[in-house]
């Protein structure tokens, strides 16, 4: 008995140990199952949802774009898009036939092929329908056709901003211009249906009122002088914000196909031009800044300037030696050439590159067309570039350089976004003394009776500026009848707040211009009309009311 007890007592721990192992094994098994359940329910859920959403629709919700005064430039509206579920369709031929009656531009063969694939449960038929079209499709009452609401980009400001906003594709993704910039810098928001974007509203530097005034004045000028195109901008002289930027012919962002035409390119930033005599401002600034000459230094401009096989002449030779001041006021090519020769090409290259005119640049609306530099920069190039030929730059880049010359000498970077409290750049390009001299000279060019810019005067606003009439290069050299006439100016000239630039492409001689096509007779008066109109919009007070 005692032996049996002791035997049982001996076996008991072993049995208990075995039972424990079995229990632990079962527990581990259940733990594994529980863990797997938890893993499946947590981890796979997201993937499944994404996998379902992906093939259906992947569109982007975009933030609103407003001008500097909060007026709407671009926004998303929900529009119905039509899709098909081929598996639910009864008679494909009937569907194709009836849809073609509503959308004549649909590709019938393509649509039939799509609908033939019975394994598909989703295929776009047409996106961005108008409410009327959607109602007509709905009224067909065909099974297998349904709608999704998708965001569609609309531009209430239309062609006024066409060159700047760029384009979006059918998924509402930014392809070019500011739309692309927004995607690149602010991120993209994927949505499956039309929804308000949570990305902050984008504030442009543009003022739609000023933009409209500019477009209107340019359009009238284009008609008056029968010009093939026109362009103009208004830039804040310190921050580089573009208050207006217009290029005609314009493009309507609501009709993206238009933007591809060559003559509709943005003439302010997507093309480069030899801008002519407005470059003399830079030449004189270089002379003053480098200490080569003062405004009173006299150059002998009586003879045409001969360099190798080339001869540089003046349009209106004065027949007497001229001071730097008078060379500028009479816009003498010979004088500008002589001044540049004295400074030398090294100084000229250095000065122009300091102003940022020799390197490519970009704005939020995309890259600015890169400057076209001469192949070799010898004496003749130095002379021609002094009066604005031989170096082609985008007007927007020139305007920024001009702004930094008149704003006291600090660097200006053009921008299309509002900079509410950004401090202006403090990088100095020219001394404030040079800037003051240039301002005086530009003002003199408008107030002096023989100044080329006298027709740009606007009573009360102290306009200053420089004219430029540049012959356009054509087959076999420059064409004397096809010119770009331009006026670059600033107001009020003693303490500038805004730079204006107006250019007319291939203006024709009219009675009003006495048969001439020079900028003093077309671009300058256009600037005068423009400034008279926009100064009140820019909060520039007339001189007599300034304290």
């Amino acid at each position, binding site marked *: 008995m005692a032996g049996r007890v002791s035997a049982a007592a001996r076996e008991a721990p072993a049995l208990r140990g075995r039972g424990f192992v079995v229990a632990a094994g079962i527990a581990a098994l259940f733990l594994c199952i529980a863990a797997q359940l938890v893993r499946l329910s947590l981890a796979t859920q997201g993937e499944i949802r994404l996998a379902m959403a992906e093939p259906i629709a992947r569109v982007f919700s975009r933030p609103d774009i407003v001008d500097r005064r909060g*007026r709407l430039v671009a926004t*998303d509206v929900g529009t119905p898009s039509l899709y098909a579920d081929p598996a639910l369709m009864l008679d494909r031929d009937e569907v194709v036939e009836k849809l073609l009656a509503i959308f004549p531009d649909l590709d019938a063969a393509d649509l039939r092929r799509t609908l033939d694939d019975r394994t598909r449960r989703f295929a776009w038929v047409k996106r961005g329908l108008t409410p009327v079209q959607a109602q007509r499709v709905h009224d067909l009452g065909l099974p297998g056709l349904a709608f999704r609401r998708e965001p569609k980009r609309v531009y209430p*400001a239309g062609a006024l901003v066409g060159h700047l906003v760029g384009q979006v594709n059918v998924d509402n993704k930014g392809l070019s211009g500011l739309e692309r910039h927004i995607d690149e810098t602010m991120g993209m928001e994927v949505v499956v249906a039309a929804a*308000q974007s949570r990305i902050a509203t984008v504030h442009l530097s543009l003022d739609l009122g000023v933009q409209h005034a500019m477009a209107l004045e340019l359009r009238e000028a284009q008609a008056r002088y029968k010009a093939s195109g026109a362009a103009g901008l208004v830039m804040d002289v310190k921050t580089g914000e573009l208050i207006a930027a217009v290029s005609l012919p314009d493009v309507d962002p609501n009709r993206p196909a238009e933007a591809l035409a060559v003559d509709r390119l943005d003439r302010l930033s997507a093309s480069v031009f030899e801008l002519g005599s407005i470059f003399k401002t830079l030449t004189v600034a270089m002379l003053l800044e480098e200490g080569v000459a003062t405004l009173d230094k006299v150059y002998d401009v009586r003879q045409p300037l001969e360099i190798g096989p080339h001869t540089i002449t003046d349009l209106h030779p004065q027949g007497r030696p001229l001071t730097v001041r008078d060379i500028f006021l009479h816009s003498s090519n010979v004088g500008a050439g002589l001044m540049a020769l004295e400074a030398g090409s090294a100084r000229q290259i250095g000065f122009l590159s300091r102003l940022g005119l020799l390197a490519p640049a970009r704005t939020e609306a995309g890259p600015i067309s890169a400057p076209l530099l001469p192949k070799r920069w010898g004496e003749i190039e130095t002379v021609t570039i002094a009066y604005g030929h031989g170096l082609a730059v985008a007007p927007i880049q020139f305007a920024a350089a001009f702004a930094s010359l008149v704003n006291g000498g600090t660097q200006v970077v053009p921008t299309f976004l509002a900079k509410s409290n950004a401090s202006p750049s403090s990088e100095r390009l020219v001394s404030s003394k040079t800037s003051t001299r240039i301002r005086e000279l530009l003002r003199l060019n408008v107030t002096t009776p023989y100044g080329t810019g006298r027709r740009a005067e606007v009573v009360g606003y102290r306009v200053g500026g420089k004219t430029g009439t540049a012959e356009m290069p054509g087959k076999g050299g420059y064409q004397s009848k096809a010119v770009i006439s331009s006026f670059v100016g600033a107001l009020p000239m003693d303490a500038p707040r805004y730079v204006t630039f107006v250019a007319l492409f291939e203006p024709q001689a009219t009675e009003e211009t006495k048969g001439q096509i020079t900028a003093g007779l077309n671009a300058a008066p256009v600037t005068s009309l423009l400034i008279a109109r926009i100064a009140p919009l820019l909060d520039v007070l007339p001189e007599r009311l300034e304290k």
Partner: protein
Amino acid sequence: MLRMLSIVAAFMTLGAAFALYSLKYDTRRVEIAVQGKERTLEKLEADIAILKAERAYLARPDRIEKLARKQGLGPIREQQYVEIGEAVATDAPARPDQQKRAPSR
């Protein structure tokens, strides 16, 4: 004593089950209401987006300009700016010296 406790516990369990049941249905009702509100919200947001776009389209500067010109309005001219004192003075009957100052351009 123990049986009493069991009976109370059983009733409490039943009560809790009922409470849970009705709570679940309440939650579903609220969920449906929330979904309805969300749909209304989406629709209103879409309507607001369209109205905003339409308002901006109607307020295009070129359209406003045409309308304003029909009313005999035009861009502000430099001569229309006056000192506050001057503006008050012109409200009074015009005197010959003021008429002379009136802009003629």
